[in-house]
């Protein structure tokens, strides 16, 4: 048996398939082994299952199975007013409620041509970049956890995340389910002293990032386990609609903060980190570098944060005219889009979330083929999924 049929045309595996063919020997019968990893497995980041066919330890087929958290968020939203869906967007990707809020608010604002006051835009940038820090630091922590460094690095990551969650709680009233943004602005202004505290946290962050890099980046075990594992070719990445850090790790320069320049992102000079090989190590490093860029944006946004109102002239009843809109932002995991179709009533006729995690999972099988089953765990970690968003 060969794997050629399953490998997508055009993408040659860069890693030599190891022990790939079934051993055929006189009098010895071998068989593929089917393993169902998950849905409750510490390495599957939630209720996610991988049906894997193994030849020895080598993955020859992998089928992701999910939907365990499916609650049909889209149907719920269609039975509800526009504002009512805002708290539910928190629960898509529960690490990144702020960016989810923003994406939804952005789509709504596009729908009725609503202007967002400057201060609100800046606060949104601050919150989004803090969210990016939270998401990436958690990814790095769990990623190393998947590699076998149980506990310590993850807890360091959780510790840093905790400080940012405290900031979220202070500003929005909740740590994870922030529900902070509204069509046309924000729910409330930043409390007094928040900015000072935020500056403290942001200033301390690079120090911990340095420490983190010292802890992990040169670690030989991590290098061996991640380099040249799960290589994603840029052509396949684009074709499969991969977005976010995963796409950039494959060397494609596509960051919606630059391309769309939504909000006030055009005012912040920052670089878009990109990988060369597109392996797990690149995906890991791209996130660390993105955190450094986020800190740059954060510093500038806090310095330039203007005074003023935080809420635009939003109508009290959100009732967009008939039409449709596709609004998207660069979420920490990739392009998070909201497609809203209105029939002129106060409820959306169609409400669709374009979940970056789900689309990024498309190539999971391609990445894992030919690798050992232990690598599949690492590759899944580097894809960065949150099941709340995959299943919706």
């Amino acid at each position: 048996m060969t794997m050629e049929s399953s490998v997508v045309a055009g993408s040659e595996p860069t890693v030599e398939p190891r022990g790939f063919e079934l051993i055929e020997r006189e009098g010895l019968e071998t068989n593929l082994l089917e393993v169902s990893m998950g849905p409750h497995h510490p390495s599957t980041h939630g209720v996610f299952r991988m049906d894997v066919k193994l030849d020895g330890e080598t993955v020859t087929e992998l089928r992701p199975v999910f939907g365990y958290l499916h609650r049909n968020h889209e149907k719920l939203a269609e039975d509800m007013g526009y504002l009512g869906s805002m708290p539910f967007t928190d629960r898509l990707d529960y690490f990144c409620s702020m960016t989810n809020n923003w994406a939804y608010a952005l789509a709504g604002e596009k729908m009725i041509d609503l202007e967002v006051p400057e201060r609100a835009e800046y606060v949104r940038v601050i919150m989004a970049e803090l969210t990016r820090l939270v998401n990436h630091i958690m990814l790095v922590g769990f990623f190393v956890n998947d590699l076998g460094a149980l506990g310590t690095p993850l807890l360091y990551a959780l510790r840093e995340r905790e400080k940012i969650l405290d900031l979220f709680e202070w500003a929005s009233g909740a740590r994870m389910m922030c529900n902070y943004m509204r069509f046309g602005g924000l729910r409330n202004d930043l409390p007094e002293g928040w900015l000072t505290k935020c500056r403290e946290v942001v200033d301390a962050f690079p120090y911990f990032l340095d420490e983190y890099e010292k802890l992990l980046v040169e670690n030989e075990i991590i290098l061996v386990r991640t380099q040249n594992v799960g290589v994603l070719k840029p052509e396949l990445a684009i074709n499969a609609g991969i977005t976010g850090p995963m796409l950039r790790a494959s060397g494609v320069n596509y960051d919606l903060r630059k391309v769309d320049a939504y909000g006030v992102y055009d005012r912040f000079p920052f670089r878009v980190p990109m990988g060369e090989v597109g392996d797990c190590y690149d995906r890991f490093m791209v996130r660390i570098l993105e955190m450094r860029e986020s800190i740059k944006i954060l510093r500038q946004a806090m310095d330039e944060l203007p005074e003023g109102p935080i809420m635009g002239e939003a109508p009290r009843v959100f009732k967009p005219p008939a039409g449709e809109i596709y609004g998207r932002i660069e979420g920490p995991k990739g392009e998070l889009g909201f497609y809203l179709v209105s029939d002129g009533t106060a409820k959306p006729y169609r409400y669709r979330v374009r979940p970056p995690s789900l689309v990024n999972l498309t190539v999971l099988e391609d990445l894992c083929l030919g690798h050992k089953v232990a690598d599949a765990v690492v590759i899944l970690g580097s894809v960065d999924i949150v099941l709340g968003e995959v299943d919706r």
Partner: protein
Amino acid sequence: MPVSDETPVDLAPVLESFPSLEVEKGTGALITQPALVLEVVQFLRDDPRYRLDYLSNVTGIDYLATVRKEKRVNEEGKTEIVKIDEPPRMDVVYHFYSMSEKRGLVTLKQRITDRDRPVATSLMPLFRSAEFQEREVYDLFGIDFQGHLDLRRLLMWEEFEDFPMRRDYVEPDDYEYEPTPHGEVLEKAKTHAGLGEGGSEE
């Protein structure tokens, strides 16, 4: 703050090449028949004027039969309200961007007129990103994608029969109701044995 999208796309060349394409009023979306969609998308992807190499979003919309009212000016110059019967239909919506040229956005809709047995053409041969998203549309709307290599349910379980995102979907009365204070739920709960207590309604 207006959202600055990428360079808007001129639809003229594709309309020229495919005269049967329509542009939807109000949304500017291209509307195509399922039979034609592969050719159109291939054109959009490969033609140097488009190079829409990134299929971002795939979803479906279900329209039940409705009566639409439209104002029209009749021959005598008076405006009158005309009632138009809209037949039921389903749309599969695709959002295309160009990563290499930083262009966007082109919305393409496959219009399926037979809502009872909806069949669409899969874009999976051209775009891998359609794989999961079309499976999701199949799962939730029941649209059959011809040419999809692995058309299975994505989010619901294999044995599930209905299609929950359809507008006329009725949720089955087969799950456990918790006695919440809501009259509606409470009434349902009462029909299920052993439940229905709680709630301070008198």
